[in-house]
C-alpha cells in the first residue's frame, strides 16, 4: 500500500441519514464529522451527490461501505473498487471503511454481511483483498468487526486474533463496533473484555455505537434502538484502552429526531471526557 495512514482523530460524529439531510444542510449541527454509506453516493449524479458535496463543505466525511466484500473467495469486484476510488478522490474522506464479512460469490450478491470462518485460509484471502483495495484506493482502510449469529466448526482462531493478524499483515486499521462486540459476545458466549484486550488498540481509528434487539435465539444487530446501557458500559471500557479515537452513533431504522441522536452523542462525549479526567 502507498499513501498516508489515518492519523488518530478524536471527534464525535453521526451517521448521516436521509431524514436529517435538511438540518445538516441548513443548521450548524454540533458534530465533528459525519459518516455516510459509500454505496448511496457511488452514483452518477443527482441530488445524492449534490447533498454530499454541500455537507462535505461543512463537515469531514467518513465513507462507510457495505459491499466491498473483503471476504469473497473470488476476490474483489473491480467495478466496485473503481467506483469507490472515484468517490474517495472526490470526497477526500476522513476514513474509508467496510466490514469483515463477505457478501458476494460467483455473481451472487446477498447484500447481507455474512460471516467468515476464522481460518488461516480466510485470513490469507482477506489480507490479499484488503491489500488490493488499499493499493487501488491509495489509502489505509478501516475494517469493522461484524455482528455474527453463528460460528463455523473450522474456526482456528478468535475474531480478535483474526483482526490482530489482519492489521499486522495489511497495515489496515480498525473500526471497532462496540455494539457488535456485545451482540457477538452474547450470541457466542465469549468475554467482551477479552475481545477488547485482544485487538490491537493502537489500530482503532473509529468506534461505532448502536442499539440491538433481542431475537428468539440471538441478539440481533438492528440499529433501531438507542444505545443500551450494556453497550455504553463496554464503550467506557473501550475508551479506557483507546483514548484518542473517533466515535459515532449509528442508527439505521426507526430513526429519531436529530436532537435525540445528538443527546446520545453527548453521552459518548461525557464517557470519553470522564475517562480523560480519570487519566489526568
Amino acid at each position: 500500500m502507498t499513501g498516508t495512514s489515518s492519523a488518530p482523530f478524536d471527534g464525535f460524529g453521526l451517521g448521516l441519514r436521509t431524514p436529517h439531510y435538511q438540518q445538516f444542510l441548513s443548521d450548524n449541527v454540533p458534530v465533528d464529522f459525519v459518516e455516510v454509506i459509500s454505496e448511496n453516493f457511488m452514483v452518477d449524479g443527482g441530488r445524492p451527490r449534490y447533498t454530499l458535496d454541500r455537507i462535505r463543505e461543512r463537515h469531514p466525511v467518513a465513507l462507510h461501505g457495505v459491499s466491498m466484500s473483503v471476504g469473497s473467495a473470488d476476490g474483489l469486484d473491480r467495478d466496485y473498487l473503481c467506483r469507490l476510488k472515484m468517490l474517495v478522490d472526490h470526497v477526500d474522506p476522513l476514513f474509508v471503511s467496510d466490514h469483515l464479512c463477505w457478501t458476494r460469490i460467483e455473481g451472487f450478491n446477498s447484500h447481507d454481511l455474512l460471516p467468515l470462518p476464522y481460518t488461516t485460509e480466510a485470513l490469507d484471502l482477506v489480507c490479499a483483498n484488503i491489500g488490493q483495495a488499499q493499493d487501488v484506493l491509495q489509502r489505509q482502510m478501516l475494517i469493522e468487526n461484524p455482528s455474527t449469529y453463528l460460528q463455523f466448526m473450522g474456526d482456528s482462531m478468535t475474531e480478535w486474533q483474526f483482526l490482530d493478524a489482519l492489521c499486522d499483515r495489511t497495515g489496515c486499521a480498525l473500526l471497532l463496533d462496540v455494539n457488535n462486540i456485545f451482540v457477538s459476545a452474547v450470541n457466542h458466549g465469549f468475554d467482551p473484555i477479552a475481545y477488547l484486550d485482544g485487538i490491537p488498540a493502537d489500530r482503532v481509528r473509529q468506534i461505532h455505537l448502536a442499539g440491538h434487539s433481542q431475537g428468539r435465539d440471538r441478539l440481533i444487530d438492528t440499529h433501531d434502538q438507542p444505545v443500551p446501557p450494556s453497550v455504553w458500559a463496554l464503550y467506557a471500557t473501550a475508551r479506557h484502552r483507546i483514548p484518542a479515537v473517533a466515535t459515532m452513533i449509528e442508527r439505521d431504522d426507526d430513526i429519531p429526531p436529530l436532537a435525540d441522536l445528538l443527546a446520545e452523542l453527548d453521552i459518548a462525549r461525557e464517557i470519553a471526557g470522564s475517562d480523560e479526567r480519570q487519566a489526568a
Partner: protein
Amino acid sequence: MSLAALQRDFRDWLTDVPVAMDDWVDGHARAGLDIYHNAYRVQLVECLKDTFAKTFLWLGEDAFIDAARVHIERTPPSGWTLGAYGVRFDETLADLYPDDAEVAELAWLDWALSRAFEGPDAATIAADTLAQIDWDRAILHLIPSVRIGRACTNAGAIWSALEAQDAPPAAVLLPNAGAMLVWRQDFTPCFRTIEAIEQRALKIVGSGSSFTALCTILIEQLGEEAGIAHAGSMLAEWIDHGLILAINEPKE
C-alpha cells in the same frame, strides 16, 4: 473444504437450493443460519418496497410482498448496489398479473423514476441559444436520464394520484397506446404520458438522426405545414422541460 465451497454452500442455503450445512456448522448454529436466511429476504423485500413505493400502494402489502418473494426466488441479486435490485421487477409483475397491465407499467414508472433520481447530471441547452443553429444540419442530443416505456394503461394517472395521496382512478386501457417519458429536470425526476407520435420522434432523435430527418418523417405523417409545426412545438417543449443536452451541427 475451501472457503469458496463454504460460500457457495452458504449462497445455496440462502437461496433455498438444497444443501447440507453440516460440514460447516454444528446444530447450535441452526438458529443463526435461520437469521441469515430471513435477513436476506427481508432486506430485498424492503429494497423493493422502497423503490416501488407506488406499486406497493396499488397492490397492497400482502400482494406486493408475495410478488417480491417470487421475484427474489427468480432473480437473486447480482450487482454490488442494492439500488439496482429490481431492474426486472416489472417483468415479474407482468407475469404475475397478465390481465392487469397497469401493475407492470406502474412498476416500470417507479423504477425509471428511481434511476433518473441518481442518473448522470447534464447541463441542458437554453432556448436563447437556438437562433445561431443551422437547422438543416442540426442533431439533437437528449439528456442521459431520458427513459421511455410503454403506456397501454392509465398507470401514469394512477401514479400521480398516489403521489398526491388522492384516491387513484380505476385502471383502464388507453384508447390509443402511447408511452411514458421519464427524465430528470434539475434534481427532480419527472414523467409524462406521451402519444405514439412523440415516442417515435424521441426514438428518431435518440438514434442520432438529424432534426431534418425528424421533420421529414413528420411531414410524411402529417403534411408539410402540420409536420413542421409539430416538430417545432415538440422541440420547444423538450427544451422547456430540460430534455435537450445539446444541438450539434456535424462537420462536413
